């Protein structure tokens, strides 16, 4: 099962007799990259754990809706990404968080999480990402950290590749500018 290609895994997921074992392999194969993707959005381990489990449970419930038009990984990323964004919105609404200083809020969240072990520069990078507009933030994380192709990102975010390239370019510029401005020499 572990040596299956993505296509073979999809075929086994479509077969009711092999679905459960194929899904177990799917969880094993994609839990790490999806975890990191979710974690970079919501920042804390506890929230990431909840969202990751909900992502896989949601994927299991909707397996019949997965037609195989897209890659399995892209489909899972889309579910994980949507769950993470929903979580952020609910969290902001529940705690009435101000959105005027996202960098400061990011720093506080990172420092309160016992599973964050980064130095000042890494905190600065995550704070810089937090200052980006939502779309630029999403594109940057999917492109830079998850190393997905523009075509895959376009499928996850339901947009065109052209606008993604522009967003990514702006995001990189803003992040380097922010880091330069906030680095003490």
């Amino acid at each position, binding site marked *: 099962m572990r040596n299956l290609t993505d296509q073979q895994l999809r075929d086994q997921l479509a077969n009711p007799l092999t679905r459960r074992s194929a899904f*177990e392999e799917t969880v094993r194969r994609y839990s790490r990259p999806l975890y990191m993707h979710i974690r*970079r959005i919501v920042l804390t381990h506890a929230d990431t754990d909840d969202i990751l489990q909900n992502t896989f449970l949601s994927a299991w419930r909707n397996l*019949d809706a997965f037609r195989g038009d897209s890659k399995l990984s892209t489909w899972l990323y889309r579910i994980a990404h949507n769950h993470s964004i929903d979580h952020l919105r609910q969290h902001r609404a529940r705690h009435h968080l101000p959105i005027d200083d996202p960098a400061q809020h990011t720093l506080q969240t990172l420092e309160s999480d016992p599973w964050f072990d980064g130095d000042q520069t*890494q905190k*600065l*990078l995550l704070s810089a990402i937090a200052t980006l507009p939502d779309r630029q933030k999403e594109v940057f994380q999917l492109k830079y950290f998850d190393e997905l192709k523009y075509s895959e990102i376009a499928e996850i975010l339901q947009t065109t590749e052209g606008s993604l390239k522009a967003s990514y370019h702006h995001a990189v510029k803003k992040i380097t500018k922010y*880091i330069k401005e906030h680095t003490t020499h």
Partner: protein
Amino acid sequence: MTNDEQEIKKITSRNNPLKVPGGYFDQLTDNIMSQIPDTPAHKQQPATPVINLWDKIKPWLYMTAMFIGITITFQNIKKIKPQPTSENYTATEQLQPPEEITIEQLADEAMIDPYTLYQYITEE
């Protein structure tokens, strides 16, 4: 890779600051699989209930019986309660005593004074 990207790379090439508890991913797979029922997802949906012929015609039968019942009830009520005919209607009218009106009331309604009315009556 652009210069800007290389600059960011310098930071991210260090160790990953987002740590995970030991053995988390091994337990995660078991944890998720334990929340998934043994039967495949598509078999979990309840089967479509089979409706037999009796169940299909039952509401129509009840409704028809109800209308027949109402019709019979109204017909019986009509038989018990006699309808007024033109003959007994006249008799009923004749049995009622005529309403008494005084000269004063009549004069008031005609808007003339009673004396003029008396004069008019006596002239006849």
